[in-house]
C-alpha cells in the first residue's frame, strides 16, 4: 500500500511536470505579447524592451521555464503581471469558493444522476425509463450558460427563491451548483442505468432474491455497490471537465473563484496566473483520480492496490 502510494505520487509529479512544460510552451509560442498588455499602447519601444528584460521574458524559453520551475518547487508561483500580487495569494483567496462550487456541483450531479439512473434501471424498458432517458439527453445537450441563465431567470428573477448572484450563504450556492451539476447528471444517469441494468442481470442478484430479501434491500445492498464501481473511476476523470464548467458558471453567476481569475488572466495574457490556475487544476485532477483509485478497493475487495 505504502509502495503503491509512493509510486502513484511519483507518477503524479511527472504528470504535473509534463503539464507545466506543455502549458508553458503553448503560452510562449502564443502570438499575443504580454508585455504589450502591461506597457499599454502608447509605450515606446524602449519601455517595452525594459519591461521585457525586467520580467525576464527576453530569455530563451527553456531558461524561463527553468526559472519558473525553480520557483514552483519553493512554493513561488510568480507574480501577476498586471495585478502586481503574488499568484499564490490570488489563488489562495479564490480557491475555497471554487472548491465549494465544485463540491456542490459534484453533489448535485451524483444525487440527480445516480437517482435517475437507478430508477430508470429498475423500470427498464417501460415508459418511465424512456422518459427519464429523454430528460438525461436534454441535460447532456444543454449548454451550461443557457442552463445557468434559464435557472437564474426562473428561480431568481421570477420566483425570487435564490439570489441572482454573489457568494456567501448556502442559498447563493444552489443555482451555480445545479447549473454545474446538470450536464454531468445527464451523463451519470445514463452510465448508472446501463451499469445497474448489467448488475441486475447478475446471478448474485437472483441469489439475493432467492434468499427472500426485499426489493429495496436487494437494490441498495446488493446491486448498488457493484453498479457504482465503474462510476467512481469516472468521477475522478470528470474533475477535468468540471474545471472547464467552472469557468463558465463562475462568469454567469459572478462567483468569485479561480475560474473568473483564469478568464480575466487569459484575456490579458497574464501568464503567471494562467500557469498558476492550470497547475492548481491539474493537481486537482491528478488528486481526484488518485482518490477515486483509493476508494475503489474499499468497495470492491477483489481489487488490491500494489
Amino acid at each position: 500500500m505504502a509502495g503503491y502510494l509512493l509510486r502513484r505520487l511519483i507518477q503524479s509529479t511527472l504528470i504535473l511536470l509534463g503539464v507545466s512544460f506543455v502549458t508553458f510552451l503553448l503560452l510562449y509560442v502564443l502570438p499575443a505579447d504580454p508585455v504589450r498588455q502591461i506597457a499599454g499602447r502608447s509605450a515606446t519601444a524602449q519601455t517595452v524592451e525594459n519591461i521585457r528584460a525586467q520580467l525576464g521574458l527576453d530569455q530563451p524559453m527553456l531558461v524561463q521555464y527553468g526559472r519558473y520551475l525553480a520557483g514552483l518547487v519553493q512554493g513561488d508561483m510568480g507574480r501577476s503581471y498586471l495585478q502586481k500580487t503574488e499568484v499564490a495569494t490570488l489563488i489562495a483567496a479564490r480557491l475555497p469558493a471554487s472548491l465549494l462550487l465544485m463540491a456542490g456541483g459534484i453533489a448535485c450531479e451524483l444525487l440527480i444522476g445516480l437517482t435517475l439512473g437507478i430508477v430508470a434501471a429498475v423500470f427498464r424498458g417501460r415508459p418511465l425509463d424512456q422518459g427519464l432517458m429523454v430528460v438525461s439527453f436534454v441535460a447532456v445537450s444543454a449548454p451550461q450558460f443557457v442552463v445557468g441563465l434559464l435557472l437564474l431567470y426562473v428561480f431568481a428573477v421570477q420566483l425570487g427563491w435564490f439570489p441572482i448572484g454573489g457568494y456567501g450563504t448556502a442559498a447563493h450556492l444552489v443555482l451555480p451548483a445545479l447549473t454545474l451539476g446538470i450536464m454531468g447528471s445527464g451523463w451519470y444517469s445514463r452510465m448508472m442505468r446501463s451499469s445497474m441494468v448489467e448488475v441486475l442481470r447478475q446471478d448474485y442478484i437472483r441469489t439475493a432474491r432467492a434468499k427472500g430479501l426485499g426489493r429495496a434491500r436487494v437494490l441498495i445492498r446488493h446491486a448498488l455497490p457493484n453498479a457504482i464501481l465503474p462510476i467512481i473511476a469516472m468521477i475522478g476523470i470528470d474533475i477535468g471537465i468540471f474545471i472547464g464548467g467552472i469557468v463558465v458558471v463562475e462568469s454567469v453567476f459572478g462567483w468569485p473563484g479561480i475560474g473568473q481569475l483564469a478568464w480575466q488572466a487569459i484575456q490579458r495574457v497574464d501568464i503567471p496566473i494562467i500557469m498558476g490556475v492550470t497547475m492548481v487544476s491539474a493537481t486537482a485532477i491528478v488528486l481526484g483520480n488518485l482518490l477515486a483509485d483509493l476508494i475503489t478497493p474499499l468497495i470492491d475487495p477483489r481489487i488490491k492496490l500494489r
Partner: protein
Amino acid sequence: MMTTHTATAPSGATAALLSVRDMTVSVRDRGVVRPLVAGLSFELYPGETLAIAGESGSGKSITSLALMGLLPNNVTVTSGQALLDGVNLPDLPEARMRAWRGAKLAMIFQEPMTSLNPVHTIGSQMTEAIRAHEAVSRGAARSAAIEALRRVRIPEPERRMKQYPHELSGGMRQRVMIAMALALRPALLIADEPTTALDVTVQREVLDLLRELQAETGTAIILITHDMGVVAESADRVVVMRQGRMIESAPVDTLFTAPKQEYTRALLSAVPRLGSGAARAKPLPPTASVPVARLVGAQVHFDIGANFLGRPTHRVHAVEGATLDIQPGETFGLVGESGCGKSTIAKALVGLVPHAGHVEVDGKALGGLTSLGRRQICRDVQMVFQDPMAALDPRMTVGEAVAEPLLIHGIGTAAERHARAADLFARVGLTQDQMTRYPHEFSGGQRQRICVARALALKPKLIICDESVSALDVSVQAQVLDLLEELQAEMGVAYLFISHDMAVVENVVDRLAVMYLGQIVEMGTRDQVFGNPQHSYTRRLLDAVPIPDPQRKRPPQPQRPGDLPSPIWPIGKAPARVHLRDIGDNHLVAQEA
C-alpha cells in the same frame, strides 16, 4: 401427454409436499404469448429427491424459477397450479412469497462463481439470509451461519465468515450456497444444475453432501440436471422434459431399465459411459519419426503479486516439466481438474503463452522462432474452444469466419477461398446457403461444427479441442464427436483432446495424460490408463464419475480436507517434480510418496 403417477411416498408419508398440476408457463414477447413449459404435472413428497432431466431448452430451469416466483417480468404462470403445502405458489402475493423464499423453499444455482455477491463477505451474506426471515440478533444469526457452514463440512467456518467469495474455490462457494439455502431448514430445496460447473471430484463431494444433509433434515429436493449420471446417483424419481413438455415420469430404476418413451431411450443411449470405450477397437497409429507436437520438460510460469518495488512475490507453476508427444493421426487426451494446467499446455503449443523447456510442432521448436515462423506454426495447429458462440464474431457471417484463416495467411483468390469454405461447410454437415448467415442463427451444435470447419480451413496437422463438446447437450455432443472421428479418418489430423469428462475422453482418445497441479502424473494408452489406473489421483478421478445406472449406487467417497493444493509458490521455491516410471509398454506413472 398423459402420465401415470405410479410413485408413492418413499418414506410412508401420505401427503405430497409439492404438487404441480398441469402448470403452463408462458412468455409474452411483443404481444405474442408463447408457452415455455406446457401442462407440467408432478408430485414431490417430503424427504424425496425428484430429478427434472432434460437438454437445453427443455424448460427445466423455467420450472424452477416459476416455483420460486423468480420468473423474469415478461414470463408468467398462465394456467395450472403449484401447491406447496396446499398453497398455490403462483397465486401468492409478492410479500408472502418473499417471506417463504429462502425459508420454506430455497434454491441453489449452477454457477457458484457468480452466485455470491463479490463485494460482501460470506458471513454478511449468510447472516443476512437468516435475519431476513427470523427476528434474531446479529450474534445469534452469526452463530447459526457458522453452524450451517460447519454442517456443509467447510473447514474453519469462523475464518470463512470473514472471507470474500473470490477467496474461495468453486466447490467451496457451492458449499456456501448450500449452507445458505439450508440454514433455515426449508421444506423444499431446488438445485438447478448444482454441480455442472464443478470438477468431477468436487461434484461427487457436493452430491454426497446433499444426500447426507437430506437424510439429516428431511428436506425434499428437486434436482434439475442434464446429466443422466447425476440423475442415476441422486434421484428417487425422474421427470424427463423436452421442449417444455413432460416426456416421461418414473421411479429412477424403472426409467433406466425400462424407459417407455423413444426420447428417453435416445437420451440414455447418448450418454457417454465409462467402460464402454474399450469396446471401440481401433489400432493405435504407428509412431512416426516426427511427431506433430512434442513437449520435453516444458514449463509455463506466471508471476503474480508485487512487493514494494513492484517486483512479483509469487509464481504460478501452471505447467511444471511436462513431457509428451502427439503422433500424426492420433487423438491424445489431456485430463485433470480445473487449474491443473491442461489448457495452458494447449496455449503453449500455439505460442499464446511464453514457455521454458522444449516445445516443438512438426519437428520445429517454438522457442526462438521468428514471427514468420510462428505464423507457419499457426497453420499446423488450430483450436476449437468450449463456447462456440463466444468463439465466433457475431458480426461476421459464418462463411466469412470459415474463410478468414485463408485470408489471414493469404491463400488463394477470393473465389478459391469461397469454394474452400463451401467444401468445408459440406464436410461438417452444413449447407452452402447457410454460409451467409450469422452465428446467432445457428444452434449450439451447428456453431461448434462451424468452429470445426474453421479449424480445418488451413489443413492443420493438429487440432486442439479444448473442452470442445463440454457445453453441448449429450445428443449433440455425440454427433460432434462422431464428426471429429470421421474427419480424422479422412484427413489424418491429430487431436489434442482436453476435457474434464472422463467418460467422453475414454470414448475418443487413443492415448492420454492425467495432469495434477501442473504435472503429468500418469500417461499411457486408453486401455492402460482406464483399464489399469495406477496413480491414486487417476483412480480418484475415475471413481468420481457418476455412473448412469441407479443399480450401482456407490458409498460416499471419503472427504478431502479443504481445497486442492495450490500451484502458487513464493519466488525462489518450486514444487517437487514427480518422477514418471514406466510400468510396461510406455505406461508411465508418477511415483507417490
